[in-house]
């Protein structure tokens, strides 16, 4: 018996089936590719975004920190500046006061009686400190008379308080300049040790020793001060 090949219609059918199959496969493959494409899209996009936003975040964290710090620095600088302004105003006042006192120094020498009393005290200080039996006194030429009297008074009190004798002699070879406001030098130790008890020197010392008292008199007690020796 002879077998016929497939009929035309069967061939047709087969062809149609195969065509549909090919198309079907292609579409499935295409679908797979599309799905993959969308997955890759999501992954790639979110990876890029996260990477960059993290970098941006850390960059801005630094920026914010720096801005805060620089603001703190500015505030501290401002507060320092203003504090210094106030402190320097105080110092200016103090300087003015001492300048004022400096100008009026020579008034101390005007009243002879008071001046002699003052000189006695200054000379006596020298006597007590140097504790020698013979001392030289330097003074202004115009003060020699009153100084001589003051020396005598000082010698007497020294004898009374210490029980020893001491003698002060004016060194007329080395007078104090006329421009000095007053006071004396007391020299001992063979000319090697001296005590400068002139008015100028004493005022200069007061600049440091009297400053706390002056400040308190002007500005009142300092609540912030921790050390008062």
């Amino acid at each position, binding site marked *: 018996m002879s077998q016929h090949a497939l009929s035309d219609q069967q061939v047709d059918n087969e062809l149609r089936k195969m065509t549909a199959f090919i198309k079907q496969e292609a579409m499935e493959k295409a679908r797979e590719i599309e799905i993959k494409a969308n997955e890759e899209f999501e992954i790639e996009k979110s990876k890029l975004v996260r990477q960059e936003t993290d970098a941006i975040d850390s960059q801005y964290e630094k920026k914010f920190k720096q801005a805060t710090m620089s603001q703190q620095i500015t505030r501290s600088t401002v507060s320092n500046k203003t504090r210094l302004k106030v402190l320097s105003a105080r110092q200016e006042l103090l300087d003015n006061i001492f300048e004022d006192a400096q100008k009026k120094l020579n008034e101390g020498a005007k009243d002879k009686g008071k001046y002699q009393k003052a000189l006695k005290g200054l000379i*006596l200080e020298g006597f007590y400190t140097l504790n020698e039996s013979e001392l030289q006194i330097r003074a202004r030429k115009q003060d020699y008379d009153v100084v001589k009297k003051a020396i005598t008074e000082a010698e007497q009190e020294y004898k009374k308080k210490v029980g020893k004798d001491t003698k002060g002699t004016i060194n007329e070879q080395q007078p104090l300049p006329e421009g000095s406001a007053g006071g004396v030098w007391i020299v001992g130790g063979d000319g090697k040790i001296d005590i400068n008890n002139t008015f100028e020197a004493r005022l200069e010392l007061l600049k440091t020793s009297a400053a706390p008292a002056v400040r308190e008199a002007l500005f009142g007690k300092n609540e912030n001060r921790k050390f008062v020796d």
Partner: protein
Amino acid sequence: MCQAEREASKIVQKAREFRTKRVKEARDEAKNEIASYKSQKEEEFKKFEAEHSQGNQQAEDEANKEAEKQIQLIKEAGKKSQAGVVKNLLAAVLEAKPQPAVRA
């Protein structure tokens, strides 16, 4: 058949092109999102700076005002007490308090 295969090929090709396009789209969209994130951060930062520089200016003005007040007080204290203090200083210059040395 050949035609079917050609068509099939076209379908797959289109899908591949779609995939390539998607990769590029991912990069472009990411770029946009990143850029807008950055500009949002920058705005936040600028606002922060502006607030604080204003705060600084205020603080400085207040501090200066306070300093002026204090300086005024100092000047007044000076006017009130200067003469008295000078007098006391001059008195201290004149008045020595001599003490004999105490032998140990």
